[in-house]
């Protein structure tokens, strides 16, 4: 990475960061990431454990709810796979939000035609991919934290217990860190798909959701509540390898296909 490439990357990073924080897209995403946990926690706990009696059959159905604030982050490693509400609507939703955000962010370049100005001046496609990965990663970290804070706020409003059995503050931090690095995987997948789909935003979003569904299952195992340093390192290595590998794939795609 000689000097010329470095300041090219710097200028590209400046473009992306300026573009990210000047358009309303990222602020909408931040809003969503903060509101979802609050909504989920408040709604379910508010509606929860009120038994609903069905007039025609007289059968009582109890809405099952969150019993502990930390459930928003996931379950401890020994809890089995469960398809119920709590395991679906927790922090892992953020992977889909981030993936969709990355798709929109890249496809906005192609739809507005700004790609003409970008790639006329930049012969190398690598900087574009690297800078997009970095800026999306930073934005997704902010989203993750907002989601976490939203969860705490929601839990407080709903009056859920903050008790921690089987894990402590340390493991929660490790869990968050490892979730952070897994974000890298989702972002680089989304970027590659967006480079393929270019202006066809609907194509990239559908593929990302499809692809995300497959990976979604393994996230709770990789990042349980009682995650240790080992989890963090594993996720870190996985994230970096994935992003570098897919970065080259995206570069290859951008080189080989016509951009306009």
């Amino acid at each position, binding site marked *: 990475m000689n000097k010329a490439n470095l300041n090219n990357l710097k200028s590209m990073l400046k473009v992306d960061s300026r573009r990210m924080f000047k358009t309303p897209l990222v602020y909408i995403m931040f809003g969503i990431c903060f509101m979802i946990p609050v909504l989920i926690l408040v709604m379910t706990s508010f509606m929860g454990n009120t038994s609903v009696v069905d007039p025609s059959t007289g059968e009582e159905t109890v809405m099952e709810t969150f019993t502990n604030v930390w459930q928003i982050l996931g379950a401890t490693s020994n809890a089995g796979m469960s398809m119920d509400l709590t395991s679906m609507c927790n922090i892992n939703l953020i992977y889909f939000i981030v993936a969709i955000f990355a798709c929109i962010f890249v496809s906005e370049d192609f739809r507005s035609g700004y790609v003409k100005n970008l790639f006329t001046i*930049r*012969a190398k496609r690598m900087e574009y991919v690297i800078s997009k990965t970095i800026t999306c990663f930073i934005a997704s970290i902010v989203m993750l934290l907002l989601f976490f804070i939203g969860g705490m706020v929601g839990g407080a409003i709903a009056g859920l217990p903050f008790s921690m059995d089987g894990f402590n503050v340390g493991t929660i931090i490790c869990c968050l860190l490892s979730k952070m690095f897994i974000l890298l995987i989702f972002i680089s997948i989304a970027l590659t798909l967006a480079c393929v789909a270019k202006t066809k935003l609907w194509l990239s979003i559908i593929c990302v959701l499809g692809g995300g569904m497959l990976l979604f299952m393994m996230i709770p195992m990789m990042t349980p509540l009682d995650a240790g340093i080992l989890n963090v390192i594993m996720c870190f290595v996985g994230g970096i390898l994935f992003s570098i590998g897919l970065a080259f794939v995206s570069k290859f795609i951008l080189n080989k296909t016509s951009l306009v």
Partner: protein
Amino acid sequence: MNAIEIRNLTKNYGEKQALSNLNMTVPMGAIYGFIGENGSGKSTTEKLICGLIRPNSGTIKLFDKDYHDQEIRSQIGVLIESPGCFPNISVWDNMKIQAANLGIKNENEEIRRVLKIVRMEGSASNKFKNCSLGMKQRIGIAFALLGNPKLLILDEPINGLDADGMRIMREVLIDITKNLSCTVLISSHILGELEKIATHYGIIRNGKMIKEMTAEELEKECPTYVAIKAKDNIEAKRALEKRYKKVIEENDELRVYDSCLTKDVVSYLYSENILPTYVQTKKINLEEYYINLMDKGGTL
């Protein structure tokens, strides 16, 4: 050293062949008028030069370096069809983003300078999507001028510009190519405007470059002639043919192509007591030359 050198460039979209081994040379500091019908491959060539699409074969050299050379590419200003701006943010923010893209140091003055050139300082704050077609075109030109590029590629920039806009465009192009500091490749259909500023011309048809020449060559190829109308054209024609070799009648005016002074022709006719009612020394302009070229099947 040439700004752009293209050697047998071919590009086909599916089975339709947009360019078939096109050759093109644009010298330094030239304003190169790129002329051709709709769909003759002008935009394709420009997109190829900017590296936006990939050629099937052929080489493109910019300033004697391969067109993938990063140092050269960062000094190209481009406006192809529409300026690539983000619709829902303000013009100023768009310019700031492009300034960052070019790595310009003191960007605010640079942006103000460029907006002042195209007289768009007033409406820099409203959103891009709310600007009218003409204003968008001026913003596109400002975009291309940002960071004074060494090579400017404009695809029909005059589209949608009003008289004032066209005048600005002429001044800007003449000014920046003054001391060979910048080369301009401009394509347009309004040949009257192009004729005023272009130093070189390239005429393309069905993906092939059929004629490349400098403005001087065009001068030579477009002969001046004396156009005369008299009360009785036939008699005047007979009189003229006695003295001049090449006299042709075209859309009811007599054209004397021999190299002669107009006033001699008039005094000769007067001596033959024929009174011309209309006399003017005229030159075939670019538009007529282009139409004749096209009618003759393109290969002169």
